[in-house]
């Protein structure tokens, strides 16, 4: 863990992607083939994460309008993103209330959304949930610093 990566940033996502793509344990145990395009909305910043086959094929910065085209996007308050990643870092994977699915259920509007309202595509959050979980769990292998966000 020589380098530190700031969350949220494209560098951080690329580092997580590298760990995710090169760690065998993230291919079994209910993970595996996964084809979907996921948006991340973090304090005004938007990122797109693409999964194809057994890996994460790309991450890039995007804008709000591009969320129209993703299968689903994850959106939660910055403090919750931070708490989730700290939980992952402390336990090597998310536990308790910090798994993605539990976070989604714990908030009235959920954390997984879509602009298109097509439930078939939105169900991909559930269908590929273990893969999504493994992707963020991979962040325990990198050193994360958090951008200071001033609440507006």
């Amino acid at each position: 863990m020589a380098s530190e990566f700031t969350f949220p940033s494209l560098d951080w996502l690329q580092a997580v992607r590298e760990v995710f793509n090169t760690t065998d344990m993230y291919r079994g145990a209910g993970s595996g083939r996964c084809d979907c395009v996921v948006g991340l909305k973090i304090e005004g910043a938007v990122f797109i994460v693409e999964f194809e086959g057994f890996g994460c094929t790309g991450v890039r910065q995007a804008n709000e309008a591009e969320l129209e085209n993703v299968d689903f996007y994850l959106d939660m308050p910055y403090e919750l993103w931070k708490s989730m990643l700290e939980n992952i870092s402390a336990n090597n994977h998310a536990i308790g209330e910090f798994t993605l699915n539990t976070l989604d259920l714990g908030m009235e509007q959920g954390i997984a959304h879509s602009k298109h309202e097509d439930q078939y595509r939105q169900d991909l959050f559930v269908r590929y949930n273990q893969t999504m979980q493994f992707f963020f769990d991979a962040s325990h292998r990198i050193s994360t610093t958090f951008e200071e966000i001033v609440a507006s």
Partner: protein
Amino acid sequence: MTSSKTNGNLPDLDLGWMDQHGPWDTHAEPGKYGFTLADIQIGEYGQVPEESNNQTGRPRGSKPRANSMRLGGYTVRTKSDIWLENASFLYEEALQRQWSSATDVPWESIKPLPDDVEQAQCQMATFLTEVEFVAGDVPARWISSTTPDYFEARQVLLAQVMDESRHMDVFRKRALANGGGLMRATGATAGFVGGIDLSRDFTEMSSRLHISGEGAVLTIFRMGELMAYNDAEKTIYRLCAQDEARHVAFGVMHLRYMSQNEPDRREEIHSYLDEAEGSMLTDAANPAGRLTQTSESLCILLGGGSDKFDEGFRKLVAIRRRQLQEYRKRVISAGFGDRFDNGRSRLNELMAQAAA
């Protein structure tokens, strides 16, 4: 390739079978996902007939055998009766996302629980074991009734049977893992769930099983993480939800194909949805419904004990509403959203009843 009756030192052989084959000189190659069913949809091998007269178990694309007997008595021989556009994709996904209830669940994380919570957890495990028997048995019957020409859809259903088998075993294991055991059977296999097996037609079965039944159970599996008391239970529910979402996807995509290709059957399918909506909150098939055996156990689990029943009930109402909202959006996605605009659906009424 040629056949020959004589060949050097070999005895005379009847090699006539060598000329009996389907299209030759095929060179299927693996793609970026490995060597998948999609990679072998080449020429005639990839052509799915609208109607099939294959009653002999002949693999699609192989050369027919003269005078062969009828083997399967297949009743599903019309493509639209069972087809969906992404069958081979779902099949490969199912194969590649399998998991083991023996080794992928952190069973060691289960610790003793208060008696009422353990009993409620065992009641849900009993219920889920019960309904997963149906979810495995019913598609299995239809597999054997479907012509091999539609093997892609058959194979997705075969994978579903494997998934349901794992769900049966994982909930049975949970019931026996922590000082409890199986509780009284709920009777969930009667009523609406039992009716699934009376379906006269595959689409009737699929709309009942995949859209209504498994859609409701999918919400329960997702909500399972809220009523899990350890990582083992969280993992069980999360992985079951993944499988269940794939089964629901089969139903949505099949209804979508049916809607687009057999518009004359739309009214019939609406009637299946009428029936499903009529029993959505009252039938024993839905553990979040009004059957006290399961709804009380859910409230205890969601609240954190029988003394926090009211808090659990508040979450149960949220689950019911979510079930109904997700059902609505899946039906729209399948191409039958008009029922929500023309007043046919009872969903608004059910939303109002969700808190009762």
